[in-house]
């Protein structure tokens, strides 16, 4: 049913006040309120996008770290204009944090994992437009 939880904000590094979260099915049954929603990577979101856009927070639970569907769910939600908080839960690797952020995630729901992810060496340049960098490289420095 409803699941209270705590998570770490990427912005501040602080634990954020708990919000009541609905799992997708409960949220649908409750008439799609503007509440925090938890979706699983295998959920089909297509019919719900419009209503999901008003959620304050969406948590995407990865069924496994090889299950890349969560990246596409997030990227798509951001592309459609989702402005709330996007949290990655379930089985993800610290090494995936940079790609998760680039797909629009703000936070991992595992505080310890976020801390270790932040210490890993990353890659400072990128070719593609993504949820954070709105212009691809070929439209930025190179097209001067």
């Amino acid at each position, binding site marked *: 049913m409803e699941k209270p939880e705590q998570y770490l904000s990427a912005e501040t590094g602080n634990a954020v006040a708990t919000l009541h979260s609905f799992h997708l099915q409960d949220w649908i049954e409750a008439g799609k309120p503007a509440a925090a929603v938890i979706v699983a990577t295998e959920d089909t979101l297509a019919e719900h996008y419009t209503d999901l856009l008003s959620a304050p927070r969406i948590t995407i639970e990865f069924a496994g770290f090889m299950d*890349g569907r969560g990246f596409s769910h997030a*990227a798509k939600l951001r*592309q459609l204009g989702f402005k709330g908080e996007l949290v990655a839960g379930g089985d993800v690797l610290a090494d995936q944090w940079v*790609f998760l952020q680039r797909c629009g995630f703000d936070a991992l729901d595992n505080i310890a994992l976020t801390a270790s992810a932040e210490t890993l060496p990353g890659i400072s*340049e990128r070719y593609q437009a993504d949820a954070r960098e709105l212009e691809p490289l070929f439209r930025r420095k190179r097209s001067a």
Partner: protein
Amino acid sequence: MYQYDQLDQTIVNERVAQFREQTERYLRGDLSDAQYLPLRLQNGLYVQRLAPMLRIAVPYGLISSAQLRAIARISRRYDKGYAHISTRQNIQLNWPQLEDVPDILADLAEVQMHAIQTSGNCIRNTTTDQFAGVAADEVVDPRPYCEIIRQWSTLHPEFAFLPRKFKIAVNGAEEDRAAIHFHDIGIELYRNTHGAVRLKFLVGGGLGRTPVIGSMIRDDLDPEHMLTYLEAILRVYNLHGRRDNKYKARIKILVKAMGVEAFRDAVDAEWETSRNGPNTLSDHALAEVAGHFTAPAYSAKDASAESAFLAEACAREPLFAGWVKRNTMAHKQPGYRAVTITLKATGQAPGDISAAQMDALAELADEFSLGELRTTHEQNMVLADVPQSELMTLWQALQPLGLAASNAGHITDMICCPGGDFCSLANAKSIPVAQALQERFEAMDYQYDLGPIELNISGCMNACGHHHVGHIGILGVDKKGQEFYQVCIGGSQAGNASIARILGPSFSRADLPTVIEKLLERYLELRESEQEQFLSVYERCGIEPFKDAVYGKA
């Protein structure tokens, strides 16, 4: 050829540092095997039967002489002094130590090379025609498009954990030398009636356990939409491709399950979100990348003098004439030819090349071909820009290197996977089969009489050796723990794409040379003229006469 700027270099350098740290964590025990697996695979590192294997990306098959020398150096320092040209135009090292791999990657980065996304469930190196930019039958030069796809797909954050690996090939010539019908996405570049470049998209082709010819889903895309459209296809695949069974996870299975129409509609619906978005290519961006692939300063001079020189040399030396006929190809630029150097000497694994040969080829590339080489998916190398008057000198220089065989496209120029000698998935060995066949058909006159023929060998149904698209294909199978081989015929990787049909019950390794010989003899009996090639005879007469030749009671 594309030269890195500071930004490309930063990405590759930082990726090396990142992988070094990941490998350290793994060796310390902070990452489990399962966690390290996708990280190492995304950097080209396999663990196979005897040692790790490192696959180095050769973007769309272009490699400079300096890069080839670097590979030679690396293969001496960290490996056994040789490398392997793969059927996807990449270069593989078969014996590196895991601990050395970060250093190897750092050495590669110094010459603008890397192993990023050469394995794993991500978008792999894009492949194309080995004669891109020089082929006489080229309509659109595919290299700028390949480079744009390379940049877009490199470290793409959304598509690093796909259901399965993903391969893209691009063709821009009349003849398809890139096998675009057998890739997850095949792109055909052509010009419409107004002379503007357009893209045709094929999806869901592939080999492996379930060979499928790609289906056309769009045939008139403006190049500016190439990346957003690719992104739409990839997103549909990433969200809907099967993840429960790795043998059903390729996009070909999704396209079959949905049906081509429904798949096309899903892609179009997805494309609505990103169409005209930031990844839309500007003319400026396309032109800038194309600027890396302008025609070089061809120095040869007088085209008719060049061809007169060549004709005269051919008349003087029939062996040379045969090599020119089989191993060189018509060039866009009058006075030049493109040269194929086959890596199929009897007694060596097809596609293997020694460090000494790499150094020597780099030298020859500098001397005769503007310092550039290409790798081919037939596991050969190409010098693409040789003046016709230099061909004789080049041919003579190749002889002491053991690289002058004039068998390009002929039966001993076969494609062969590493098989049971190196690969833990193999049902059977494949390299000894290649060797036995090479020995049997070594006689050049016989090969030439047979004419062009493609023979492909895989050690198991994963089909790394492309047996499904060989005119003759050989597949290693396991029969109660014994190595056996299935033979199929009639495949084609070209524009008239087709999948080979199985001839019948499998054979022991010892019987294979005789079986293949019977097929070839039957072909020679059936052909109506010397011009009629094996594949045409098969298409005309069907499989029965060949079955009869092999299984019939004589």
